[in-house]
């Protein structure tokens, strides 16, 4: 009892081949889409690699790029097969490899599905990478004269302005590190000496934030320094002041940005997987309908098409039996060789 048996006459076969050919061209474009999404993701990761401690994993975008290329190739090939299927002479040369090609397609679809799941899951390692990278980034904010770190200030400032965030968890992270370079501190002044003396590491800590934390929507000019001192500014209460600097932390902002991107990519890859499954089933129907012609010499005769020749259970037991036979076959050969060897001796 075949799975999903459908009867085909010539007209139906032609229509099927045309539809599947059309779908294959859509699938080629879907492959291009997957490729470009992988490329885009890779570029976005590269742009902020400084904030991710330069050890972010490029496994996922590389996988997407690879799958996109393979998808383009498979679908173009499948389209060619469909195009030739209407001509018995041309189809005959594809016939032998069609079964293997279909098995390969099924494997590829499974891999594509796994990729989609990965996109949705890889958020978690990204979170840890970002937390670590941002913390280090803030520590090196002041090192604008150290080669290799001199652009950290600019990167952080631009990131805070672009993503509308401040600090790692919130703006108070800036109170705990020295973000003013020693070159611009007057060590003879009393204020500087007090601040340096006030903590164990001798760091110049202050209750201020860089300008990139400022929120332009605030009705009052930005208050960056002496933020916890209510008397330093007229009509200011730092507990109730909400609009002065950005409230969100940059880790959360970046995570929601990349998380959103990965969710979208994962959803699109799932859709592409569905399309690929569709074209694989279509090609299986084309293949099976062309191999069961009632009268092999008459191209206009009726035929049947199916997804599986026998039911799912029987196909499964067939595959297991084949694998066992292959395993036994190699054992028999070994036994024969072992039997021969002692004879020769």
């Amino acid at each position, binding site marked *: 009892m075949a799975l999903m048996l459908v009867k085909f006459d010539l007209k139906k076969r032609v229509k099927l081949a045309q539809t599947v050919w059309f779908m294959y061209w859509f699938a080629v474009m879907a492959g291009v889409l997957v490729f470009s999404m992988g490329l885009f993701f890779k570029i976005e990761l590269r742009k902020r690699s400084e904030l991710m401690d330069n050890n972010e994993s490029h496994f996922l975008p590389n996988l997407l790029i690879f799958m996109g290329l393979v998808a383009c190739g498979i679908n173009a090939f499948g389209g060619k097969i469909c195009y030739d299927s209407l001509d018995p002479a041309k189809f005959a040369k594809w016939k032998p490899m069609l079964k293997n090609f279909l098995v390969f397609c099924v494997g590829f679809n499974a891999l594509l599905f796994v990729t989609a799941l990965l996109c949705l899951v890889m958020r978690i390692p990204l979170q840890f990478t970002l937390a670590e990278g941002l913390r280090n980034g803030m520590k090196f904010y002041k090192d604008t004269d150290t080669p290799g770190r001199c652009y950290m200030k600019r990167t952080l400032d631009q990131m805070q*302005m672009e993503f509308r965030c401040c600090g790692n968890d919130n703006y108070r992270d800036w109170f705990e590190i020295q973000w003013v370079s020693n070159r*611009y501190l007057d060590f003879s002044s009393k204020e500087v000496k007090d601040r340096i003396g006030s903590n164990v590491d001798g760091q110049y800590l202050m209750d201020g934030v860089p300008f990139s934390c400022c929120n*332009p*929507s605030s*009705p*009052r000019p*930005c208050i*960056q320094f002496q933020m916890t001192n209510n008397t330093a500014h007229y009509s200011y209460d730092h507990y109730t002041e909400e609009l002065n600097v950005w409230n969100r932390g940059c880790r959360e902002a970046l995570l929601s940005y990349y998380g959103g991107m990965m969710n979208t990519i994962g959803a699109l890859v799932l859709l592409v997987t569905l399309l690929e499954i569709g074209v694989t089933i279509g090609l299986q129907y084309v293949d099976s309908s062309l191999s069961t012609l009632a009268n092999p010499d008459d191209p206009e005769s009726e035929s049947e098409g199916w997804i599986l020749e026998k039911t799912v259970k029987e196909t499964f037991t067939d595959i297991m039996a084949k694998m066992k036979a292959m395993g036994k076959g190699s054992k028999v050969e070994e036994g024969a060789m072992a039997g021969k060897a002692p004879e020769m001796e």
Partner: protein
Amino acid sequence: MVLLKMKFTLQRRVRLAQGLWLLSWLAVMCGTFVFCLGLYLKAELLRRAEVMDNTEIHVVPNILMMVGLASIGTNWVASRVCQDSLDASRFPRWKAFLLAWFVVATLLCFLLLAVVVLSYALQGSLEESLKVGLRNGIRFYKDTDVPGRCFQKETIDHLQMEFRCCGNNNFRDWFEVQWVSNRYLDFTSKDVKDRIRSNVDGRYLLDGVPFSCCNPASPRPCLQNRLTDNSAHHSYDFQSEELNLYSRGCRQALIDYYMGLMNSTGPGVLSVILIQMSVVLSLRYLQTSVEGAMAQEDPAGDSEGYILEKGLKETFEDLKANILILLKFGQVNPNAAQESPEAGDPEKASDNTTEKATSTTSAS
């Protein structure tokens, strides 16, 4: 003496019709491109409408959008004419149309050229508009509690951060304006009272700038206040400090941006003009060669195609003569209208109209 005469066999006519059909569809897509270009330019101008005083510069994207739509329609008509041109029964209905089509198509080319010229000519007007708009924006920066102006601060801050500029001409524009709202000034403090007394209008002026002028590329944390006072900051020299704030003025930044946009669209518009002109010329050849073939006894035989039936000078003089005849009929008619109420003769009026009809057909 015919202008640019060419011989056309039947096969050549067929090829010309097919090629022109493809070309006119290409021209339709160019028309869409021009329309989208105009739309994009208008959207960009509208985005910054708050810092612009007048909308004179909007004439450039408006014309582009109009021309884009008109050229889509015109070139679609051209493709229909091509399809019908090889069918002797369907082509004659387009005959009357074609003169109007040529006029419209040439007009579109001239309009596109005018757009290219205008985009350079209106630069001065854009500059003026930005000067006034930015000056107002900076003046109203502090009015975050005045309805209608409460977003001015946010607009100017975003503008300065996005375009990496400060002030109108440079950052010193902020020294001349009170940009801190009175609500946040402590009028009992000595510093505030001194500053307010130091100028005629009683404004709180300071040598400081808003945070949005800060340059992230500076190696030192941003210095916003007491910019002219070297002793206020360690190791700071006001005259030689370049990276602390953005050195460009926002007017210059915006003009560079918009001029860059319009310059980069220049080559695209010029190539659209070329394509449109080639559609016009090819359609003229097709029209004359097909009409010539239909006038002959053997419609499938050779015919001649040309751009103008007579030389350039003669055609021009013919046109002048036709226009004068039309004008003369315009002059004769009032006299006829005065006479006909006296005579009460409807026949004379119908005679005039038939004469007018023949002269119009001879002109086309």
